[in-house]
C-alpha cells in the first residue's frame, strides 16, 4: 500500500505541474463565469442557466482532464523509459497501475472541488439576488442536489480515468484518446442500447444487446445535473448504489489494465 501511495504522490505532483491542466482549468472558470452573461438574456431563468452551464463545464473539463492525463499515465513512463527505473525498485506492476490511477484520481478530486466551489459561490450569489423569483419558478434552492451532481460527475471521471488507463496500457496516446472518447460516447447512450434490447424481436439479438448494455460503462447513471436545478430524488440509496457501481467498474478496469500491463515486455 505504501508503494501505491508513493506512486500516487508522484503522479499527483507530476499532474499538477502539467500545463495542459492549467489551461483546461482556466477554460472551465471562463465557462462558469460566462454563464452570467447567458443568464442575463434568459428571461429570468438565472439559476437554471448558471447551474446547467457550470455543471456542464465541470463535466466536460473533468472528462478532458481524465482522458488527456489518463492516456499518458502509463505511456509517458514507457516512452521516457522511466518505467525501467521504477521497476528496478521493489514495485509490482499492479502497484504501479493502481498508484498511477490513485494519483490522477486525487488530482481530479482537488480540481473538481475547486471548480465546484467557484460555481457554488456564483449560484449562491444568483440565488440570493433573485431569491423570490427562484423560489417561485423552481420551488427551492437544492444546494444538496448541487453537490450530489458534482459528486456524481466526479464518479464519472473516476470511471473515465480507468478507461483511459486501460487503453493507455497497450496503445499510443492518440489511439487511446480516440478509443476512450468512443467508449464515453457509447456509455452516455447506454439506455438506447437497452431500449434496442427491449424493442428487438430476435431473442438472441436482444440478449446480446442486454449483455452489451450491462458490460459497457453506464455513464448516464452519473448524470443528476437536472436534479440540481429542479430538485428530485437523489436519495442516499441512489448515492450508495451509484458509488458502489463506480468502484466495482473502476476496479474491473484497473484489473484489466494490470493484466495487459503484466504481459508487456520492456526491452
Amino acid at each position: 500500500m505504501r508503494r501505491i501511495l508513493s506512486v500516487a504522490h508522484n503522479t499527483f505532483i507530476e499532474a499538477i505541474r502539467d500545463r495542459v491542466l492549467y489551461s483546461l482549468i482556466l477554460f472551465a472558470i471562463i465557462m462558469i463565469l460566462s454563464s452570467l452573461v447567458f443568464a442575463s438574456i434568459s428571461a429570468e431563468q438565472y439559476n437554471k442557466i448558471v447551474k446547467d452551464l457550470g455543471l456542464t463545464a465541470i463535466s466536460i473539463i473533468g472528462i478532458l482532464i481524465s482522458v488527456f492525463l489518463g492516456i499518458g499515465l502509463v505511456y509517458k513512463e514507457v516512452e521516457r523509459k522511466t518505467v525501467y527505473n521504477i521497476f528496478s525498485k521493489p514495485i509490482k506492476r499492479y502497484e504501479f497501475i493502481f498508484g498511477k490511477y490513485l494519483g490522477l484520481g486525487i488530482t481530479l478530486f482537488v480540481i473538481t472541488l475547486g471548480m465546484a466551489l467557484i460555481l457554488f459561490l456564483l449560484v449562491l450569489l444568483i440565488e440570493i439576488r433573485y431569491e423570490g423569483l427562484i423560489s417561485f419558478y423552481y420551488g427551492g434552492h437544492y444546494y444538496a442536489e448541487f453537490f450530489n451532481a458534482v459528486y456524481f460527475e466526479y464518479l464519472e471521471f473516476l470511471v473515465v480515468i480507468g478507461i483511459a488507463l486501460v487503453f493507455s496500457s497497450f496503445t499510443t496516446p492518440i489511439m487511446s484518446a480516440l478509443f476512450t472518447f468512443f467508449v464515453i460516447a457509447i456509455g452516455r447512450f447506454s439506455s438506447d442500447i437497452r431500449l434496442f434490447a427491449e424493442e428487438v424481436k430476435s431473442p438472441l439479438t436482444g440478449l446480446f444487446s442486454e449483455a452489451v448494455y450491462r458490460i459497457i460503462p453506464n455513464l448516464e447513471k452519473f448524470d443528476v445535473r437536472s436534479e440540481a436545478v429542479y430538485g428530485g430524488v437523489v436519495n442516499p440509496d441512489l448515492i450508495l448504489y451509484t458509488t458502489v457501481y463506480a468502484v466495482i467498474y473502476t476496479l474491473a478496469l484497473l484489473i484489466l489494465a494490470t493484466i495487459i500491463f503484466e504481459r508487456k515486455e520492456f526491452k
Partner: protein
Amino acid sequence: MSVRTAIKPLIALVILAALVAVSIPFQIRIDDIRGRFRSVEGSLYISSSSLKKLSLGYNELLADIYWIRALQYFGSKKPGEQNPDLLYHYFDIITDLDPKFVNAYRYGGTFLAEPPPFGLGETRKGIDLLDKGRRNNPENYKLPLEEAFIYYFYPKDYEKAAELFREASEKPGISPLRKASITGMAASAHARGGNNELSRKIWEIIYETSPSGGRREFAFRNINEIDTMALEDKLTESLKEYVKRYGRLPSSPEDLARSGIVKNGIPEAPVGGKFILAPKIEAIKSSELSKRKIQEDISFLNAKSARYKKLYGDYPRSPDELRQFIELQTTADFPVHPLGEEYVYDPVTGKVESSVVVD
C-alpha cells in the same frame, strides 16, 4: 512458462467477470430508484433524439441554448413576421431535451395561444404544449392553471377550464390559501359555463374548509349570488307560465305573485334588494345582481374608452367603434345589459351610461 504464470491471467479474468456480474444488481437497483431510462421517451422522437445524441448527454445545456435562441428569434421579430410553427418546434425541442423545464411550457404555451398582438393566436398549439408539460410534470400546479386560463379566455370552454382549475388545486404542496383561491376559480368557471349546481357545491366546500375569513366571506357571497340566480330562473319560468295563461306580461313581480302561479309569494333575494321585471327579455331579475353587473360593465366600457383615447388621441367616435376596439384588443365580448336594455355611449365625454337606472 510455468503453470502458475499461465493461471494468473485466468484468475484475473475470472475476477474481472465476477466484478462485472456483481455490478449488475447495483445497476438494476439504480434503475429502480431512478425509474426506467430517462432517454427512452425522448428517443421515440426522431428530431429530438438526434439532438440528444449530438449533445453527448448534456441535454439541459442544449435546451438552454435553444431557449435563448427562441427568445432571441422572437424578441427580434415583429408580431406579423413570427412563425408559429417554428415557435412550436423550438419549444417542442426544448421540452424534449429538458422535460422538467416548466417555464418553457408556460411561456411557449401562453405566447402561442394568446391572440395578436401579444401572442400568435395559435390556441391549439399552445394547449398542446401545455398538455405535454402536464404529462411530463404531473405534480406541477402552474401548468394546469395556465392551461385553464387559456381555455377560459380564448376558446371560452369554461367546463374544461374548471376541470383544469380543479386539477391545479389538487396538486400536492400548494398552500391552503392558494388552493382555496384556485378552487374558487374552478367554481367561477363552472358558473360561467352555466353549471351553477357544481359551482355552488365548490363554493360550499371553500366556505366550510377555508382557513381565511376573507375567503369564507367571498365564498358566502358567491353562494348567495348562485342562489339568487336560481331564484331568478324559477321566477322567470313562472313568468312564462303567466304569459302563456294571460297573453301579456304582468305589471310587476307582485302582480305575478297575485296570480297564484308563484307559490308562497315572491321570495327574498339572498343577495339583498328585490326582484324586478325585465320586460325586454321577458325575465325576472334581481335588482342587486343587475345593479352590480351594470356597474361592472360601465366601469369596463369607460376604461376601454379611455384606453382608446390613450392609444389614438381621442375617444371612439361611435358605440360601434368602441365595440370593435373591445372585440379586437381584448379577450372579452362587448357586455350585454342584464335587463336587455342599452348602454348609451357619449362620444364627447367617452362615458357610458345605462338606459335605465336600477334602485
